[in-house]
């Protein structure tokens, strides 16, 4: 059965006026990503992690030794749930509506993020493909490096407005632009 | 030597060469009636009142640093009696009354300044909680007023009324609250105690407590053994260390609280103000420095210094409350070691050892308590009887289930 209800993104309220041209430093808001919390039960941690890293169409994000986010921009929640239910020793819950995913990229991205997170973003320290839970703009976030100058940030929906405003503020001196990606 | 305008005039004419030392620098005697461990505010006040009120003058105060080197010299100088619970209110009001006559009593101007305190509230729930507190004060005869937003604005127009994340709704106001020059309290009590024969022994660290037949006979110190009939501990953040020498098991954890002072500024903040949407509090000294602080650093610490995150958090709250501070500059930060108790309230009591007395658990509210703490502790030591305003401040209250939990946060000391 299809859903006949209008789905709203929390940042719809924070973006007004015309979309401007995209600058080299840009923040993309992914409109409908699929995000699941995945929890491994006692002594199943390694197996669950392995299964997540081997899964297709899903990018795992590290939260703790027994918790990950399974993120997908390509397949639907149903397919991700099906995949997850095949992992023994894992529990999971759909958080797609509870988390907001943005991607920030550009030549000044490290300088911008240094104002938002405490960790060392040097590529030898926080390598491409790494992800971790951390404070970002006063919110509990998951940050992943998805490219040399590209990071993905996942934050709780209720705080997404504040985080977004602060990211934009910190990007001001670097002419950071923003927009939705469907 | 009595201090007065005349004495200043007279001494000035003779080139200020004839002033006498504020206190002697005695060598310890072999034995005292009472030894007080800790030459901070509470220890010195205890000695002063023992001598003055209870006639016990064969007393030594042992201080491992210099007089007043503990929290009495590193606090934010606030005095008040705006407490919620029956276990605290009468005691702090007794203290405030002693402050009100203190300077003439000990002939030292400690600049007691009852400039009024505003405890701001920012929600209905907070207002109700302050109303409950204010009525608890009023029912005990303590002055308290509940101000609305406009009344607060008239008193402190510079507060953030127009662009606040947590708008100010009003305040609980205690007019008689205020500030005191902190060092002068230690010095005034010390000088008064010395004049009455008390030996103030600085740079004398207690290293052991000697006991025989279940009673204390004296203390080992860096200046040798000193005997006593009664031993009284007023060691604040070091209470556990000293208490352990007598095998006391205490509900105390030491934490660091930072405090700050700004550069000297022309007077702008007339009152003592606390921020209800955070922990920030501020007043302005007679010298012009804004004196302020906020939360403890939350981890166990005996280091008298804090961490940058707490500094930043304090300033964030400060600027949120008083936007005009943004371009003023903070000059100095420091830390004090707080004897946080498990319910946030102090202990003035006997111990399982009959002639060992305990005064601790002041958390970060010890300064305002100094006079009453000294008086009641002296009362306890002298008469072996609890002063009625400290009757709830018992050591065994935790076991019996009679905690005095002002903050309602339970047995986690860093939450009080």
């Amino acid at each position: 059965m299809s859903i006949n209800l209008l789905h709203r993104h929390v940042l719809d309220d924070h973006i007004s006026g015309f979309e401007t041209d995209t600058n080299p430093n840009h923040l993309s808001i992914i409109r409908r990503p699929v995000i699941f919390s995945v929890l491994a039960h006692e002594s199943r941690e390694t197996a669950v992690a392995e299964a997540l890293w081997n899964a297709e169409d899903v990018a795992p994000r590290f939260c703790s030794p027994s918790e990950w986010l399974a993120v997908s921009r390509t397949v639907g929640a149903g397919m991700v749930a099906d995949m997850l239910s095949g992992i023994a020793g894992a529990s999971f819950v759909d958080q797609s509506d509870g988390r907001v995913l943005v991607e920030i990229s550009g030549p000044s991205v490290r300088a911008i993020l240094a104002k938002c997170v405490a960790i060392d973003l040097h590529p030898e320290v926080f390598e491409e493909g790494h992800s971790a839970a951390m404070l970002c703009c006063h919110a509990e976030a998951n940050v992943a490096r998805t490219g040399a100058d590209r990071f993905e940030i996942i934050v709780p929906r209720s705080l997404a407005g504040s985080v977004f405003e602060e990211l934009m503020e910190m990007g001001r001196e670097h002419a950071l632009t923003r927009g939705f990606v469907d | 030597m009595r201090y007065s305008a005349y004495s200043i005039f007279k001494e000035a004419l003779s080139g200020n060469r004839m002033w006498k030392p504020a206190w002697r620098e005695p060598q310890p005697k072999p034995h005292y009636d009472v030894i007080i461990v800790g030459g901070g505010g509470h220890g010195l006040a205890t000695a002063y009142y023992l001598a003055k009120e209870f006639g016990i003058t064969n007393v030594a105060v042992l201080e491992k640093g210099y007089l007043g080197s503990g929290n009495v010299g590193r606090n934010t100088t606030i005095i008040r009696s705006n407490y919620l619970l029956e276990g605290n209110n009468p005691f702090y009001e007794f203290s405030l009354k002693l402050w009100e006559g203190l300077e003439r009593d000990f002939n030292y101007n400690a600049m007691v300044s009852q400039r009024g305190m505003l405890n701001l509230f920012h929600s209905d729930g907070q207002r109700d909680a302050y109303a409950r507190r204010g009525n608890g004060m009023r029912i005990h005869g303590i002055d308290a007023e509940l101000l609305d937003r406009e009344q607060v604005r008239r008193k402190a127009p510079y507060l953030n009324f127009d662009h606040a994340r947590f708008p100010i709704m009003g305040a609980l106001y205690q007019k008689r609250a205020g500030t005191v020059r902190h060092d002068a309290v230690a010095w005034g009590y010390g000088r008064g105690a010395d004049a009455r024969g008390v030996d103030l022994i600085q740079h004398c660290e207690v290293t052991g407590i000697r006991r025989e037949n279940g009673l204390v006979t004296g203390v080992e110190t860096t200046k040798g053994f000193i005997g006593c009939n009664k031993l009284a501990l007023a060691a604040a953040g070091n209470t556990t260390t000293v208490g352990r020498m007598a095998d006391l098991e205490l509900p105390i954890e030491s934490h660091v609280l930072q405090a700050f002072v700004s550069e000297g500024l022309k007077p702008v903040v007339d009152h003592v103000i606390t921020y209800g949407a955070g922990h920030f509090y501020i007043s302005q000294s007679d010298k012009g420095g804004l004196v302020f602080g906020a939360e403890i650093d939350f981890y166990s610490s005996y280091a008298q210094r804090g961490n940058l995150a707490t500094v930043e958090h304090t300033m964030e709250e400060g600027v949120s409350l008083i936007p005009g501070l943004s371009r003023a500059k903070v000059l100095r930060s420091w830390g004090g070691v707080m004897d946080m108790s498990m319910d946030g309230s102090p202990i003035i009591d006997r111990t399982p050892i009959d002639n060992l007395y305990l005064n601790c658990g002041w958390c970060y509210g010890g300064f305002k308590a100094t006079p009453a703490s000294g008086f009641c502790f002296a009362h306890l030591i002298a008469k072996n009887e609890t002063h009625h305003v400290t009757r709830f401040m018992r050591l065994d209250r935790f076991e019996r289930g009679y905690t005095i939990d002002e903050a309602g946060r339970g047995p986690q000391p860093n939450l009080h």
Partner: protein
Amino acid sequence: MASLITCPHCGTRPKEEFSIRGAAAPKRPSPTAKDEAWHVYVYVRDNPKGRYQEYWHHVAGCRRFLVVERDNLTHEVFGVTDAAEFERAGADE
């Protein structure tokens, strides 16, 4: 310490990411233990000056409770262990 904690799961993080719960040494007594043991567990603290074990909750990170062993006078950190591991090690002793 105080400024940075190296979380065994997340790496070096600032104090702001943690919430500090308190002494890690007291062990919750068995339900049948004496009243005195329960009183001591809930209310009495060793509060030593020096080496100290303390629970730090990595709330903005892995959400694990960690036991930070450190000197509370110099603020030197000796080690950080996941609390479950710490309890297990304690139980083995």
